[in-house]
């Protein structure tokens, strides 16, 4: 099941099966990205993203499958940034619960999905800068190309390439240091 230009065109023409393909391919990755970035309500935000994608199908959508994938993650990233900013301005005042901290422990509802290795990977990524982390996650989790990632972040391809390079080198050092200290 691949997201092709033909599938996107069929979805735009009102083919419900094509829409199902769009949703089944993109929604799990959008959800995974939002979940990995610590969104407040990943499932609800995913639905909001696809409501916007649905509206975009009737509007001006260019670029076929690439355009649709870029659009979906652009919306998801924008919602995530809004969510993070809102929480930074008005943090939820709740007692700290280590069991609910995705950086140190896996929430009960995500136990099946987020393995110990995934938690470890997130701990490494948390030590990167914000932009480097975003680029690496969009490349690996969202399966976006360099160009698509640049479009999502609204940056140039060389700038994203630079962020990617620094992020990978930082990860290598972190992992190597971890291996040494083990």
């Amino acid at each position: 099941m691949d997201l092709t230009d033909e599938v996107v065109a069929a979805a735009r023409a009102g083919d419900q099966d094509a829409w199902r393909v769009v949703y089944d391919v993109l929604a799990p990755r959008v959800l995974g990205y939002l979940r990995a970035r610590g969104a407040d309500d990943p499932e609800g935000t995913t639905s909001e993203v696809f409501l916007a994608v649905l509206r975009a199908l009737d509007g001006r959508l260019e670029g076929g499958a690439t355009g649709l994938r870029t659009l979906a993650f652009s919306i998801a990233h924008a919602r995530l940034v809004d969510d993070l900013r809102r929480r930074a301005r008005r943090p939820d005042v709740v007692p700290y619960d280590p069991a609910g901290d995705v950086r140190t422990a896996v929430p009960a509802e995500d136990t099946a999905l987020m393995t110990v290795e995934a938690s470890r990977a997130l701990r490494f990524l948390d030590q990167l800068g914000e932009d480097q982390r975003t680029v690496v996650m969009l490349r690996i989790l969202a399966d976006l190309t360099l160009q698509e990632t640049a479009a999502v972040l609204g940056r140039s391809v060389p700038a994203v390439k630079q962020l990617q390079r620094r992020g990978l080198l930082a990860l290598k050092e972190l992992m190597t240091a971890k291996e040494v200290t083990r």
Partner: protein
Amino acid sequence: MTTPLDTLETMLAECDLDEDLAPVLAATLGSLDHLVGEPPEPSPELAAAVADRFGSTTDTQVLPAVVVPIQRGRRLALAAAVAVVAAVSTTGIAAANNKLPEPVQREIAEFSRHYLPFEFPAPKQQAPRQQPGQEPKKEQRPEPVQPTPTVGDDDHVDDHGGEVDRDDRVEPGDDRDTREDREDNSGPGSDDSSHSGSDDSGSDDSGSDDNSGHGSDD
């Protein structure tokens, strides 16, 4: 579908980094793929929007087809109710002003007298038809009759005395009015005459009034 290892090799190549790093990085970052699971259940809003956009036969799609006839039926019922209220109120106002055709006015007055807490006026009395060329008759009103002094008359004993005036003595089977009736009908100031208009027996009384009026003329 590309694997995390493929993606990392591509990323390292794009950045001119040693691709031998790929397996090391993939050992950790590859587990991020575990965060990508099954497609999430769409929210009700998204499901409704999809049904609306693609015309699927979900519950949200069925709903308008069920609702439309109900709304149409309600609209008809509302229109009928408005028509009934308008007709009743228009008829009621006309009946209160005594402007309906006489048979209808009579029926409504009769109905209101028996079944409603208020009464509509009875239809106006029709004037007697005139023959062509005949002068219209002047309305004859009974002359007011001077009440004759009855109290203190030697021959008269009041009602409770049991004795009746000789001239007015009533024999069984006699058609003449009793003195009491005459007194009742004798003048406009009597109590009964003031009630005669609204009483059912008023028509009978008016007949006796006419008689007494003619009698006074004579």
